[in-house]
Protein backbone atom coordinates (compact mmCIF):
# COMPACT_ATOMS: atom_id res chain seq x y z
CA UNK A 1 0.00 0.00 0.00
CA UNK A 2 1.28 3.41 -0.88
CA UNK A 3 1.44 5.63 2.13
CA UNK A 4 1.35 9.27 1.19
CA UNK A 5 3.10 11.45 3.76
CA UNK A 6 0.86 14.08 5.28
CA UNK A 7 2.07 17.52 4.31
CA UNK A 8 1.45 20.67 6.27
CA UNK A 9 0.16 23.77 4.50
CA UNK A 10 3.61 25.40 4.32
CA UNK A 11 4.99 22.28 2.69
CA UNK A 12 2.18 22.30 0.16
CA UNK A 13 2.95 25.88 -0.85
CA UNK A 14 6.63 24.92 -1.33
CA UNK A 15 7.94 28.45 -1.05
CA UNK A 16 8.97 28.18 2.60
CA UNK A 17 10.71 24.87 1.98
CA UNK A 18 12.47 26.22 -1.10
CA UNK A 19 13.71 29.16 0.95
CA UNK A 20 14.97 26.74 3.60
CA UNK A 21 16.83 24.76 0.95
CA UNK A 22 18.34 27.90 -0.52
CA UNK A 23 19.51 28.89 2.94
CA UNK A 24 21.21 25.51 3.38
CA UNK A 25 23.12 25.81 0.11
CA UNK A 26 24.26 29.37 0.75
CA UNK A 27 25.28 28.41 4.28
CA UNK A 28 27.40 25.59 2.90
CA UNK A 29 28.87 27.87 0.29
CA UNK A 30 30.00 30.54 2.71
CA UNK A 31 30.72 28.80 6.01
CA UNK A 32 31.42 25.13 5.39
CA UNK A 33 35.01 23.90 5.28
CA UNK A 34 36.01 22.91 1.77
CA UNK A 35 37.11 19.30 1.46
CA UNK A 36 39.25 19.73 -1.65
CA UNK A 37 42.97 18.92 -1.26
CA UNK A 38 44.91 21.10 -3.70
CA UNK A 39 47.09 18.20 -4.80
CA UNK A 40 50.58 19.26 -5.87
CA UNK A 41 50.77 21.85 -3.08
CA UNK A 42 48.85 19.95 -0.42
CA UNK A 43 49.12 16.23 0.08
CA UNK A 44 47.06 13.75 1.99
CA UNK A 45 48.89 12.23 4.92
CA UNK A 46 48.56 8.48 5.01
CA UNK A 47 49.21 6.32 8.03
CA UNK A 48 52.50 4.45 8.41
CA UNK A 49 50.71 1.23 7.53
CA UNK A 50 49.96 2.53 4.02
CA UNK A 51 51.42 0.17 1.39
CA UNK A 52 53.20 2.26 -1.25
CA UNK A 53 56.45 1.83 -3.16
CA UNK A 54 58.85 -0.82 -1.83
CA UNK A 55 62.25 -0.09 -0.39
CA UNK A 56 65.07 -2.16 1.03
CA UNK A 57 66.20 -1.29 4.49
CA UNK A 58 69.95 -0.96 5.08
CA UNK A 59 72.10 -0.89 8.20
CA UNK A 60 75.49 0.85 8.01
CA UNK A 61 75.16 1.11 4.25
CA UNK A 62 74.67 -2.63 3.77
CA UNK A 63 71.27 -3.96 2.80
CA UNK A 64 69.54 -6.15 5.36
CA UNK A 65 68.52 -8.67 2.69
CA UNK A 66 70.20 -12.05 2.77
CA UNK A 67 68.52 -13.34 -0.41
CA UNK A 68 66.58 -15.99 1.49
CA UNK A 69 63.96 -16.05 -1.32
CA UNK A 70 61.00 -15.90 1.08
CA UNK A 71 59.53 -12.81 -0.54
CA UNK A 72 59.54 -14.10 -4.17
CA UNK A 73 58.04 -17.32 -2.83
CA UNK A 74 55.17 -15.64 -1.00
CA UNK A 75 54.54 -13.01 -3.66
CA UNK A 76 51.12 -13.75 -5.26
CA UNK A 77 51.91 -11.60 -8.30
CA UNK A 78 55.35 -13.14 -8.75
CA UNK A 79 56.92 -9.77 -9.32
CA UNK A 80 60.08 -10.07 -7.22
CA UNK A 81 63.21 -11.43 -8.91
CA UNK A 82 66.31 -12.08 -6.79
CA UNK A 83 69.68 -13.41 -7.92
CA UNK A 84 71.66 -14.49 -4.86
CA UNK A 85 75.41 -14.12 -4.46
CA UNK A 86 78.15 -14.42 -1.87
CA UNK A 87 80.13 -11.64 -0.24
CA UNK A 88 83.89 -12.03 0.53
CA UNK A 89 82.87 -12.56 4.19
CA UNK A 90 80.77 -15.58 3.12
CA UNK A 91 77.55 -13.62 3.72
CA UNK A 92 74.71 -14.32 1.24
CA UNK A 93 73.40 -11.19 -0.48
CA UNK A 94 71.20 -10.27 -3.48
CA UNK A 95 73.29 -9.53 -6.56
CA UNK A 96 70.12 -8.53 -8.33
CA UNK A 97 66.89 -7.45 -6.62
CA UNK A 98 64.15 -6.36 -9.00
CA UNK A 99 60.49 -5.59 -8.42
CA UNK A 100 58.18 -5.38 -11.42
CA UNK A 101 55.79 -2.76 -10.03
CA UNK A 102 53.47 -3.17 -13.02
CA UNK A 103 52.59 -6.63 -11.71
CA UNK A 104 52.73 -5.81 -8.00
CA UNK A 105 49.38 -5.74 -6.23
CA UNK A 106 50.73 -4.04 -3.10
CA UNK A 107 49.45 -6.74 -0.78
CA UNK A 108 52.44 -6.38 1.56
CA UNK A 109 53.01 -10.13 1.87
CA UNK A 110 56.73 -9.68 1.13
CA UNK A 111 57.02 -7.30 4.04
CA UNK A 112 55.27 -9.83 6.29
CA UNK A 113 57.40 -12.72 5.13
CA UNK A 114 60.81 -11.02 5.42
CA UNK A 115 62.71 -12.34 8.48
CA UNK A 116 65.40 -9.65 8.22
CA UNK A 117 63.07 -6.65 8.02
CA UNK A 118 64.70 -5.87 4.69
CA UNK A 119 61.87 -5.35 2.16
CA UNK A 120 59.33 -2.79 3.28
CA UNK A 121 56.52 -0.77 1.77
CA UNK A 122 56.80 3.00 2.12
CA UNK A 123 54.02 5.60 2.09
CA UNK A 124 55.06 6.97 -1.32
CA UNK A 125 52.14 6.62 -3.73
CA UNK A 126 53.29 8.65 -6.75
CA UNK A 127 54.46 5.96 -9.15
CA UNK A 128 53.35 7.12 -12.59
CA UNK A 129 56.10 6.84 -15.16
CA UNK A 130 56.52 7.32 -18.87
CA UNK A 131 58.64 4.17 -19.26
CA UNK A 132 58.05 0.56 -18.42
CA UNK A 133 60.77 -0.24 -15.94
CA UNK A 134 61.33 -2.56 -13.05
CA UNK A 135 62.60 -1.16 -9.79
CA UNK A 136 66.25 -2.19 -9.34
CA UNK A 137 68.23 -2.73 -6.20
CA UNK A 138 69.93 0.66 -6.32
CA UNK A 139 66.63 2.48 -6.52
CA UNK A 140 65.03 0.34 -3.84
CA UNK A 141 67.92 1.05 -1.48
CA UNK A 142 67.74 4.78 -2.16
CA UNK A 143 64.03 5.42 -1.94
CA UNK A 144 62.95 5.50 1.64
CA UNK A 145 59.58 7.21 1.54
CA UNK A 146 59.02 9.03 4.80
CA UNK A 147 60.51 6.24 6.91
Amino acid at each position, binding site marked *: MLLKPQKSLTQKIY*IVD*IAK*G*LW*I*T*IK*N*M*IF*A*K*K*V*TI*QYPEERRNYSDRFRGVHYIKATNGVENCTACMLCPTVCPAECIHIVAGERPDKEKYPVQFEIDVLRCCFCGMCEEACPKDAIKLSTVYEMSQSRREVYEKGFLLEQRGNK
Partner: protein
Amino acid sequence: MGKLTMDTLGWCILIGKAVGVILVLVSSVPLMVWVERRGSALMQNRLGPNRVGPLGLIQPLADSIKLIFKEDLIPGHVTAFYFVLAPLLSLIPAFMTFAVIPFAAPILVEGRTISFQVADLNVGLLYIFAIASLGVYGIIMAGWSSNNKYSLLGSLRSSSQMISYELSMGLSVIGIIMVFSSVRLGDIAASQGEAWIYLGSLMIPKWGVLIQPLGFLIFLTAAFAETNRLPFDLPEGESELVAGYHLEYGSMKFAIFMMAEYLNMTTASGLMVSLYFGGWQMFWPLTWIFDALGFTGMPHEWARVVFQTASFTIKVAAFLWFFVWVRWTLPRFRYDQLMNFGWKVMLPLSLANIFLTGALIYWKVI
Protein backbone atom coordinates in the same frame (compact mmCIF):
# COMPACT_ATOMS: atom_id res chain seq x y z
CA MET B 1 12.72 52.07 -34.14
CA GLY B 2 10.01 54.54 -34.99
CA LYS B 3 10.47 56.00 -38.43
CA LEU B 4 12.39 54.19 -41.13
CA THR B 5 13.95 57.34 -42.58
CA MET B 6 17.08 57.80 -40.50
CA ASP B 7 20.21 59.77 -41.13
CA THR B 8 23.75 58.41 -40.96
CA LEU B 9 24.24 59.23 -37.31
CA GLY B 10 20.98 57.52 -36.43
CA TRP B 11 22.10 54.36 -38.19
CA CYS B 12 25.50 54.56 -36.48
CA ILE B 13 23.83 54.83 -33.06
CA LEU B 14 21.50 51.93 -33.83
CA ILE B 15 24.30 49.66 -35.07
CA GLY B 16 26.49 50.72 -32.16
CA LYS B 17 23.79 49.77 -29.69
CA ALA B 18 23.14 46.43 -31.40
CA VAL B 19 26.84 45.52 -31.51
CA GLY B 20 27.36 46.68 -27.93
CA VAL B 21 24.46 44.63 -26.60
CA ILE B 22 25.55 41.53 -28.50
CA LEU B 23 29.14 41.88 -27.27
CA VAL B 24 28.04 42.29 -23.68
CA LEU B 25 25.73 39.28 -24.00
CA VAL B 26 28.42 37.10 -25.56
CA SER B 27 30.99 38.05 -22.96
CA SER B 28 28.50 37.37 -20.18
CA VAL B 29 28.39 33.70 -21.20
CA PRO B 30 31.93 32.68 -20.13
CA LEU B 31 31.49 34.70 -16.97
CA MET B 32 28.27 32.84 -16.22
CA VAL B 33 29.97 29.52 -16.90
CA TRP B 34 32.62 30.48 -14.37
CA VAL B 35 30.03 31.59 -11.81
CA GLU B 36 28.07 28.40 -12.34
CA ARG B 37 31.09 26.15 -11.91
CA ARG B 38 32.65 27.96 -8.97
CA GLY B 39 29.28 28.53 -7.32
CA SER B 40 28.22 24.91 -7.63
CA ALA B 41 31.60 23.80 -6.32
CA LEU B 42 31.45 26.04 -3.28
CA MET B 43 27.90 24.91 -2.51
CA GLN B 44 29.07 21.30 -2.60
CA ASN B 45 32.05 22.08 -0.33
CA ARG B 46 34.49 21.87 -3.24
CA LEU B 47 36.68 24.58 -4.71
CA GLY B 48 35.97 24.32 -8.43
CA PRO B 49 38.26 25.39 -11.28
CA ASN B 50 40.80 27.78 -9.76
CA ARG B 51 43.99 27.12 -11.71
CA VAL B 52 43.62 28.89 -15.07
CA GLY B 53 44.09 32.58 -14.49
CA PRO B 54 43.22 34.49 -11.32
CA LEU B 55 40.47 32.60 -9.41
CA GLY B 56 40.10 30.39 -12.48
CA LEU B 57 38.49 33.18 -14.50
CA ILE B 58 40.25 32.14 -17.72
CA GLN B 59 38.91 28.56 -17.45
CA PRO B 60 35.85 29.13 -19.71
CA LEU B 61 38.17 30.65 -22.33
CA ALA B 62 40.37 27.57 -22.22
CA ASP B 63 37.25 25.39 -22.50
CA SER B 64 35.98 27.31 -25.50
CA ILE B 65 39.38 27.11 -27.21
CA LYS B 66 39.24 23.35 -26.68
CA LEU B 67 35.70 23.18 -28.06
CA ILE B 68 36.58 25.25 -31.14
CA PHE B 69 39.56 23.06 -32.01
CA LYS B 70 37.71 19.78 -31.56
CA GLU B 71 36.60 17.86 -34.63
CA ASP B 72 33.26 19.14 -35.90
CA LEU B 73 31.68 15.71 -36.07
CA ILE B 74 28.38 15.02 -37.82
CA PRO B 75 27.36 11.42 -37.07
CA GLY B 76 26.35 9.26 -40.04
CA HIS B 77 22.80 8.61 -38.89
CA VAL B 78 21.63 12.21 -38.50
CA THR B 79 19.83 14.47 -40.95
CA ALA B 80 22.80 16.73 -41.50
CA PHE B 81 21.05 19.92 -42.65
CA TYR B 82 18.70 20.21 -39.69
CA PHE B 83 21.38 18.87 -37.36
CA VAL B 84 23.60 21.85 -38.19
CA LEU B 85 20.70 24.30 -38.30
CA ALA B 86 19.34 23.42 -34.84
CA PRO B 87 22.05 25.03 -32.65
CA LEU B 88 21.80 28.24 -34.65
CA LEU B 89 18.02 28.22 -34.34
CA SER B 90 18.28 28.09 -30.59
CA LEU B 91 21.08 30.69 -30.40
CA ILE B 92 19.64 33.41 -32.65
CA PRO B 93 16.30 33.87 -30.80
CA ALA B 94 18.27 34.02 -27.56
CA PHE B 95 20.16 37.03 -28.96
CA MET B 96 17.07 38.58 -30.55
CA THR B 97 14.95 38.68 -27.40
CA PHE B 98 17.28 41.05 -25.60
CA ALA B 99 16.74 43.72 -28.27
CA VAL B 100 13.68 45.28 -26.62
CA ILE B 101 14.93 45.25 -23.03
CA PRO B 102 15.81 48.80 -21.91
CA PHE B 103 18.91 49.21 -19.76
CA ALA B 104 18.70 52.97 -19.16
CA ALA B 105 16.18 55.78 -19.61
CA PRO B 106 16.28 57.66 -22.93
CA ILE B 107 18.59 60.65 -23.14
CA LEU B 108 18.10 63.82 -25.18
CA VAL B 109 21.31 64.84 -26.99
CA GLU B 110 21.09 67.90 -29.30
CA GLY B 111 17.47 67.32 -30.19
CA ARG B 112 17.95 63.61 -30.74
CA THR B 113 16.42 61.13 -28.33
CA ILE B 114 18.67 58.12 -27.79
CA SER B 115 16.81 55.23 -26.19
CA PHE B 116 18.99 52.66 -24.47
CA GLN B 117 17.52 49.57 -26.02
CA VAL B 118 18.24 48.21 -29.46
CA ALA B 119 14.65 48.46 -30.67
CA ASP B 120 12.01 50.49 -28.86
CA LEU B 121 9.06 48.46 -30.14
CA ASN B 122 5.57 49.42 -29.07
CA VAL B 123 4.75 45.68 -28.91
CA GLY B 124 7.79 44.98 -26.72
CA LEU B 125 6.38 42.21 -24.55
CA LEU B 126 4.57 40.48 -27.40
CA TYR B 127 7.79 40.54 -29.41
CA ILE B 128 9.63 38.85 -26.54
CA PHE B 129 7.03 36.09 -26.25
CA ALA B 130 6.97 35.62 -30.01
CA ILE B 131 10.74 35.28 -30.32
CA ALA B 132 11.32 33.36 -27.09
CA SER B 133 8.95 30.61 -28.23
CA LEU B 134 11.00 30.24 -31.43
CA GLY B 135 13.78 28.84 -29.28
CA VAL B 136 11.86 25.60 -28.87
CA TYR B 137 12.20 24.93 -32.61
CA GLY B 138 15.95 24.62 -32.21
CA ILE B 139 15.47 22.00 -29.50
CA ILE B 140 12.84 20.04 -31.40
CA MET B 141 14.94 20.14 -34.56
CA ALA B 142 18.00 18.97 -32.64
CA GLY B 143 16.13 16.06 -31.11
CA TRP B 144 14.41 14.98 -34.28
CA SER B 145 17.33 15.32 -36.66
CA SER B 146 19.60 13.44 -34.26
CA ASN B 147 17.67 10.28 -35.19
CA ASN B 148 18.11 8.97 -31.68
CA LYS B 149 15.34 7.93 -29.34
CA TYR B 150 16.77 9.69 -26.28
CA SER B 151 17.20 12.94 -28.16
CA LEU B 152 13.69 12.72 -29.54
CA LEU B 153 12.24 12.04 -26.08
CA GLY B 154 14.14 15.01 -24.71
CA SER B 155 12.89 17.34 -27.39
CA LEU B 156 9.31 16.06 -27.02
CA ARG B 157 9.47 16.78 -23.31
CA SER B 158 10.93 20.17 -23.98
CA SER B 159 8.21 21.16 -26.42
CA SER B 160 5.34 20.10 -24.17
CA GLN B 161 7.00 21.74 -21.17
CA MET B 162 7.53 25.01 -22.99
CA ILE B 163 3.96 25.11 -24.28
CA SER B 164 2.53 24.42 -20.81
CA TYR B 165 4.62 27.03 -19.08
CA GLU B 166 4.42 29.67 -21.79
CA LEU B 167 0.69 29.87 -21.09
CA SER B 168 1.05 30.75 -17.43
CA MET B 169 4.04 32.98 -18.22
CA GLY B 170 1.99 35.00 -20.66
CA LEU B 171 -0.99 35.16 -18.32
CA SER B 172 1.12 36.23 -15.35
CA VAL B 173 2.41 39.23 -17.30
CA ILE B 174 -1.13 40.41 -18.05
CA GLY B 175 -1.32 41.70 -14.47
CA ILE B 176 1.65 43.96 -15.13
CA ILE B 177 0.18 45.14 -18.43
CA MET B 178 -3.10 45.97 -16.64
CA VAL B 179 -1.33 48.01 -13.97
CA PHE B 180 0.98 49.99 -16.25
CA SER B 181 -1.35 50.04 -19.31
CA SER B 182 1.50 49.44 -21.75
CA VAL B 183 3.39 46.60 -23.38
CA ARG B 184 6.32 48.87 -24.23
CA LEU B 185 9.09 47.80 -21.89
CA GLY B 186 10.56 51.30 -21.67
CA ASP B 187 7.21 52.64 -20.41
CA ILE B 188 6.85 49.79 -17.90
CA ALA B 189 10.34 50.41 -16.53
CA ALA B 190 9.76 54.16 -16.36
CA SER B 191 6.41 53.94 -14.57
CA GLN B 192 7.90 51.64 -11.95
CA GLY B 193 9.77 54.66 -10.58
CA GLU B 194 6.51 56.35 -9.59
CA ALA B 195 5.49 56.45 -5.96
CA TRP B 196 3.03 53.82 -4.82
CA ILE B 197 2.54 54.57 -1.13
CA TYR B 198 4.44 56.57 1.46
CA LEU B 199 5.59 55.03 4.73
CA GLY B 200 6.32 58.21 6.62
CA SER B 201 8.93 59.96 4.49
CA LEU B 202 9.97 56.67 2.85
CA MET B 203 8.66 56.42 -0.71
CA ILE B 204 7.69 52.91 -1.79
CA PRO B 205 8.01 52.77 -5.59
CA LYS B 206 5.60 50.95 -7.87
CA TRP B 207 7.99 48.07 -8.48
CA GLY B 208 6.25 45.13 -10.12
CA VAL B 209 7.32 42.72 -7.41
CA LEU B 210 5.59 44.84 -4.77
CA ILE B 211 2.29 45.30 -6.56
CA GLN B 212 2.28 41.90 -8.31
CA PRO B 213 3.94 39.42 -5.91
CA LEU B 214 1.91 36.44 -7.10
CA GLY B 215 2.44 37.35 -10.73
CA PHE B 216 6.17 37.61 -10.09
CA LEU B 217 6.35 34.17 -8.49
CA ILE B 218 4.48 32.62 -11.41
CA PHE B 219 6.64 34.45 -13.91
CA LEU B 220 9.81 33.39 -12.09
CA THR B 221 8.80 29.73 -12.06
CA ALA B 222 7.74 29.85 -15.69
CA ALA B 223 11.03 31.55 -16.59
CA PHE B 224 12.93 28.66 -15.02
CA ALA B 225 10.84 26.24 -17.07
CA GLU B 226 11.28 28.28 -20.26
CA THR B 227 15.06 28.36 -19.93
CA ASN B 228 15.18 24.61 -19.22
CA ARG B 229 17.05 25.11 -15.98
CA LEU B 230 16.79 22.94 -12.92
CA PRO B 231 14.32 22.09 -11.38
CA PHE B 232 12.71 22.02 -14.85
CA ASP B 233 15.57 20.65 -16.95
CA LEU B 234 13.74 17.50 -18.00
CA PRO B 235 14.71 17.87 -21.69
CA GLU B 236 18.25 16.95 -20.73
CA GLY B 237 17.61 14.78 -17.67
CA GLU B 238 20.91 12.94 -17.50
CA SER B 239 19.74 9.97 -15.49
CA GLU B 240 17.02 8.86 -17.88
CA LEU B 241 17.79 10.56 -21.22
CA VAL B 242 21.63 10.52 -21.21
CA ALA B 243 21.80 14.16 -22.27
CA GLY B 244 18.47 14.75 -24.01
CA TYR B 245 18.33 16.76 -27.19
CA HIS B 246 22.03 17.57 -27.41
CA LEU B 247 23.15 13.98 -27.00
CA GLU B 248 24.60 13.69 -30.51
CA TYR B 249 26.25 17.09 -30.45
CA GLY B 250 29.91 17.76 -29.85
CA SER B 251 32.54 20.48 -30.19
CA MET B 252 31.30 23.99 -31.00
CA LYS B 253 27.76 22.91 -31.87
CA PHE B 254 27.33 21.71 -28.29
CA ALA B 255 28.91 24.92 -27.02
CA ILE B 256 26.35 26.91 -29.04
CA PHE B 257 23.54 25.07 -27.22
CA MET B 258 25.15 25.95 -23.91
CA MET B 259 25.55 29.56 -25.05
CA ALA B 260 21.87 29.67 -25.98
CA GLU B 261 20.95 28.38 -22.54
CA TYR B 262 22.98 31.04 -20.78
CA LEU B 263 21.73 33.77 -23.11
CA ASN B 264 18.16 32.68 -22.42
CA MET B 265 18.93 32.99 -18.74
CA THR B 266 20.28 36.50 -19.24
CA THR B 267 17.24 37.50 -21.27
CA ALA B 268 14.85 36.02 -18.72
CA SER B 269 16.70 37.88 -15.95
CA GLY B 270 16.59 41.11 -17.95
CA LEU B 271 12.89 40.64 -18.54
CA MET B 272 12.18 39.95 -14.88
CA VAL B 273 14.17 43.03 -13.90
CA SER B 274 12.35 45.20 -16.45
CA LEU B 275 8.91 43.93 -15.50
CA TYR B 276 9.14 43.38 -11.75
CA PHE B 277 12.27 45.02 -10.34
CA GLY B 278 12.05 48.51 -11.73
CA GLY B 279 14.22 47.98 -14.81
CA TRP B 280 16.87 50.68 -14.80
CA GLN B 281 15.45 52.45 -11.73
CA MET B 282 18.29 53.11 -9.31
CA PHE B 283 18.14 51.66 -5.82
CA TRP B 284 19.40 52.94 -2.52
CA PRO B 285 23.23 53.03 -2.44
CA LEU B 286 23.40 54.09 -6.08
CA THR B 287 20.88 56.92 -5.71
CA TRP B 288 22.82 58.15 -2.71
CA ILE B 289 26.16 58.14 -4.59
CA PHE B 290 24.49 59.75 -7.61
CA ASP B 291 23.05 62.59 -5.52
CA ALA B 292 26.35 63.03 -3.70
CA LEU B 293 28.22 63.49 -6.99
CA GLY B 294 25.97 66.45 -7.77
CA PHE B 295 26.43 66.86 -11.54
CA THR B 296 24.40 69.40 -13.51
CA GLY B 297 23.46 69.80 -17.16
CA MET B 298 24.71 67.25 -19.72
CA PRO B 299 27.22 65.53 -17.40
CA HIS B 300 24.28 64.91 -15.05
CA GLU B 301 22.34 63.22 -17.84
CA TRP B 302 25.25 61.03 -18.90
CA ALA B 303 26.03 60.12 -15.29
CA ARG B 304 22.37 59.17 -14.91
CA VAL B 305 22.69 56.83 -17.90
CA VAL B 306 25.82 55.23 -16.42
CA PHE B 307 24.20 54.76 -13.01
CA GLN B 308 20.99 53.39 -14.50
CA THR B 309 22.94 50.91 -16.64
CA ALA B 310 24.92 49.91 -13.56
CA SER B 311 21.79 49.35 -11.47
CA PHE B 312 20.20 47.35 -14.30
CA THR B 313 23.35 45.23 -14.60
CA ILE B 314 23.49 44.62 -10.85
CA LYS B 315 19.87 43.51 -10.78
CA VAL B 316 20.34 41.20 -13.76
CA ALA B 317 23.48 39.76 -12.16
CA ALA B 318 21.53 39.10 -8.98
CA PHE B 319 18.89 37.21 -10.95
CA LEU B 320 21.54 35.25 -12.84
CA TRP B 321 23.04 34.26 -9.51
CA PHE B 322 19.57 33.23 -8.36
CA PHE B 323 19.31 30.91 -11.38
CA VAL B 324 22.59 29.26 -10.39
CA TRP B 325 21.65 29.16 -6.73
CA VAL B 326 18.31 27.43 -7.39
CA ARG B 327 19.91 25.00 -9.82
CA TRP B 328 22.24 23.65 -7.16
CA THR B 329 19.56 23.56 -4.48
CA LEU B 330 16.48 21.89 -5.94
CA PRO B 331 16.32 18.43 -7.48
CA ARG B 332 14.57 17.79 -10.77
CA PHE B 333 10.80 17.35 -11.00
CA ARG B 334 9.29 14.09 -12.13
CA TYR B 335 7.59 14.51 -15.49
CA ASP B 336 4.00 14.03 -14.24
CA GLN B 337 4.72 16.43 -11.38
CA LEU B 338 5.94 18.97 -13.90
CA MET B 339 2.81 18.72 -16.01
CA ASN B 340 0.51 18.69 -12.98
CA PHE B 341 2.24 21.73 -11.59
CA GLY B 342 2.07 23.58 -14.89
CA TRP B 343 -1.58 22.94 -15.70
CA LYS B 344 -3.23 22.46 -12.31
CA VAL B 345 -1.36 25.00 -10.17
CA MET B 346 0.35 27.62 -12.32
CA LEU B 347 -2.46 28.17 -14.82
CA PRO B 348 -5.28 28.64 -12.25
CA LEU B 349 -3.01 30.83 -10.14
CA SER B 350 -2.12 33.06 -13.07
CA LEU B 351 -5.81 33.36 -14.01
CA ALA B 352 -6.62 34.20 -10.38
CA ASN B 353 -3.88 36.81 -10.47
CA ILE B 354 -5.55 38.56 -13.40
CA PHE B 355 -8.90 38.76 -11.55
CA LEU B 356 -7.19 39.87 -8.34
CA THR B 357 -5.31 42.60 -10.19
CA GLY B 358 -8.51 43.75 -11.85
CA ALA B 359 -10.26 43.96 -8.50
CA LEU B 360 -7.36 45.84 -6.92
CA ILE B 361 -7.25 48.32 -9.79
CA TYR B 362 -11.03 48.82 -9.46
CA TRP B 363 -10.64 49.61 -5.75
CA LYS B 364 -7.67 51.85 -6.61
CA VAL B 365 -5.24 49.97 -4.37
CA ILE B 366 -2.64 49.77 -7.13
